[in-house]
């Protein structure tokens, strides 16, 4: 039964990310992307990593995807954008990359099934993750916080002139 749900979830993930890559409508692909991260959380939970599953739902499906949704909303893409996207990706253009990607997949699968892998039965809970995170990985946490700070400053810097320009534009329109 567990195996059945795992394979069903994998099928859901694969179809949804395929739809993300194929779809011409940005909002549709975003919805598929959210679906794929939710399905990924299901797989994490099944594997005995409940903390990773919760983070996947909260941060990926909750925070990062909301950022994407807001940007799509600000870009105001309509039916014209869908038509443009169709002309940008005609049927023939993706054959080369798709063939190469399929070849790479076959190669990876071949390498993966070459040697047998040893096994141990355990589930890893949040307590163990926290102890390891703030023990040997403390430096990595600091580096991640610096990275997030840099991301924050970068996003603010990139978004600020946009806000200023639009503010002056509305001001001019009003006067």
């Amino acid at each position, binding site marked *: 039964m*567990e*195996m059945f749900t795992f394979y069903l979830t994998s099928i859901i*993930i694969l179809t949804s*990310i395929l739809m*993300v*890559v194929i779809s011409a409508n*940005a909002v549709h*692909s975003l919805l598929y*992307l959210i679906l794929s*991260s939710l399905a*990924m959380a299901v*797989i*994490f939970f*099944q*594997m*005995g*990593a409940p903390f990773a599953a919760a*983070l996947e739902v909260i*941060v*990926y499906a909750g925070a*990062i995807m909301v950022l*994407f949704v807001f*940007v*799509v909303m600000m*870009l105001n893409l309509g039916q014209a954008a869908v038509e443009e*996207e169709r002309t*940008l*990706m005609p049927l023939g253009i*993706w054959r080369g*990359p*798709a063939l190469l*990607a399929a070849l*790479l*997949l076959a190669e*990876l*699968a071949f390498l*993966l*099934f070459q040697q047998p*892998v040893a*096994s*141990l039965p*355990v*589930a*890893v809970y949040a307590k163990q*993750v926290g102890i*390891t*995170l703030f023990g040997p*990985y403390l430096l*990595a946490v600091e580096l*991640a916080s610096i*990275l997030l700070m840099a*991301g*924050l400053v*970068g*996003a603010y*810097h*990139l*978004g600020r*002139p*946009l806000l200023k320009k639009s503010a002056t534009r509305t001001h001019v329109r009003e006067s």
Partner: protein
Amino acid sequence: MNAANIPLDHLMLLSCMIFVIGLAGVMMRRNVLYILMSLEIVLNAVCLAFVSAGAHWGKADGQIMFMLILSLAAAEVSVGLGLILQIHRKHGTLDVDRLKELQG
């Protein structure tokens, strides 16, 4: 083996398939927004590989790498989406082929 007795081979195969589909998306699409989404898929595939390997050996390290990748993805997406907004404002398009300022 992890809690649900899923073979590591199958998890790694799934992760590889997700990675390859995301990579194909990065190469196929010409809209910057879709390229960023495909990059998210690729990062998600790497996360799956780390977490499944961590679950397989019963260690927390895989989930810690997952958290670090998650923070990387959050920073990358915030900067990338800011850039996309700027590109859309300056050029009125998101087509990477029409953004030729870096061309020599």
